[in-house]
């Protein structure tokens, strides 16, 4: 069975600080990996995704994530956060051949101005 763990439940940063959110998954086969963001009161939006190829994936709004297969990790990074990045961030995975998307428990990011 697939599972996803996000170790940081709450992160508080000042504007311009660098961000790294951890995501580890458990699955024996090939996976697709996603990061979604949920701004306060809004629906989930896709930040970036990895299916194959270059393990360093660039997404919207300056976010990037690196797939490290040996560590079963897909950490999200941003070099300099803004107040508008305050949101809940979800890592998700599905195994190739399966449509079921399994989400992590989310990380709440608060960026103070």
């Amino acid at each position, binding site marked *: 069975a697939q599972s996803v763990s996000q170790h940081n439940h709450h992160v508080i940063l000042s504007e311009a600080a660098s961000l790294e959110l951890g995501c580890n998954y458990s699955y024996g086969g090939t996976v697709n990996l996603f990061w979604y963001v949920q701004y306060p009161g809004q629906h*989930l939006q896709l930040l970036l995704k990895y299916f194959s190829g270059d393990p360093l994936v660039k997404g919207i709004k300056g976010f990037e994530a690196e797939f490290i297969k040996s560590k079963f990790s897909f950490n999200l990074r941003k070099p300099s956060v803004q107040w508008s990045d305050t949101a809940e961030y979800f890592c998700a995975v599905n195994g190739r051949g399966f449509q079921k998307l399994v989400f992590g*428990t989310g990380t*709440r990011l608060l960026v103070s101005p």
Partner: protein
Amino acid sequence: DTAVSQTPKYLVTQMGNDKSIKCEQNLGHDTMYWYKQDSKKFLKIMFSYNNKELIINETVPNRFSPKSPDKAHLNLHINSLELGDSAVYFCASSQDRTSGRSTDTQYFGPGTRLTVL
């Protein structure tokens, strides 16, 4: 030009009532999903339909019954509502032309906040 829309956005009801939430996508996708997000923000899949056929049915009480009249719509009907059903319900869709493909991104609707009193 909303891609995935849900109605209603908010739903407040008494225990024991029956209610429905509607979802429509205008992306031409073949697969649609229902997710439940609890008070701790944990998201879990409930159902998935591919071209009107049920393909994922997680361990969900049979009080929840999805219905897909066509591939652009997936409605969720809930009988005998309980306090624990209070949550935000998200509909999503993805391209997936054939059942079993998994490389397509899922696009989410705005959510329906259900409160059971």
